[in-house]
């Protein structure tokens, strides 16, 4: 299984992260839930659901922090019996991004996922393009762009 990216500059940093941290699933997305790259997902519907839920969690915790008069939380970790979920925001030249990583507790650990996340942030910052003028999103283009992104993410 390989990393698939809509924006090619994310490919190398994310590939390194997946291998070093031993992550099972990874999503790199904007805070709005637009997916830039993914690893491990096999179905588009799973990517869309995970991106929407991850973005919603980030929005909720950011608002919670704002209500408390604090800066946004750095990262969130949730561990179950066999898997852990790590969700964290970062800033790059491309703008703010969110990483959602799912790891097997048998294969990896929160310590490894956090440790190599620091490296991922450094690599993404080094590789990211400068943030350009935001492109106007037209309703007519939206579906075409969404389908193109999904095709790229799943190699269809």
């Amino acid at each position, binding site marked *: 299984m390989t990393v698939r990216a809509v924006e090619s500059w994310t490919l190398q940093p994310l590939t390194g992260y997946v291998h070093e941290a031993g992550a099972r699933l990874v999503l790199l997305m904007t805070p709005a839930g637009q997916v830039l790259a993914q690893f491990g997902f096999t179905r588009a519907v799973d990517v869309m659901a995970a991106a929407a839920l991850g973005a919603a969690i980030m929005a909720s915790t950011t608002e919670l922090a704002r209500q408390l008069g604090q800066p946004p939380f750095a990262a969130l970790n949730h561990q179950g019996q066999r898997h852990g979920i790590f969700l964290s925001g970062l800033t790059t030249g491309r703008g703010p991004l969110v990483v959602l990583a799912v790891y097997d*507790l048998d294969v990896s*650990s*929160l*310590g*490894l996922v*956090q*440790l190599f996340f620091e490296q991922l942030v450094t690599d993404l910052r080094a590789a990211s393009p400068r943030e350009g003028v935001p492109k106007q999103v037209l309703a007519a283009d939206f579906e075409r762009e969404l389908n193109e992104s999904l095709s790229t993410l799943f190699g269809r």
Partner: protein
Amino acid sequence: MTAASFGHALDQITRVPGVRGAMLVSAEDGLVVAEHLMEGIRGPAVAALAGSLATRLRRAMEAAGAGTGQFWQLLCEGGGLLVVPGASGILIVAITAPDVNAGLVRLELLRAAEAVA
């Protein structure tokens, strides 16, 4: 067990000449529970990698039918890592110079493991 007693246990290890730092690490998570390190040692990185290594070593020992590991030592050109797995999934870790008295460090690690338990 309190944070102060964790600190005391680590302090005893770092008193041994040649020890550059000591840590309590959650083996399963690879996270630092308590640390007493010299400047320049990346505690979270050591904890994450030592935790991962300990998990793999434990599986290898089990697969080999050798039971549970009681002590392991990694020696490198510039230093070493000595680890005693303690109770409740806590690793007691010492980061040392290459010429350290490993027997003495092991003794202090075992004492710390008892204290942590």
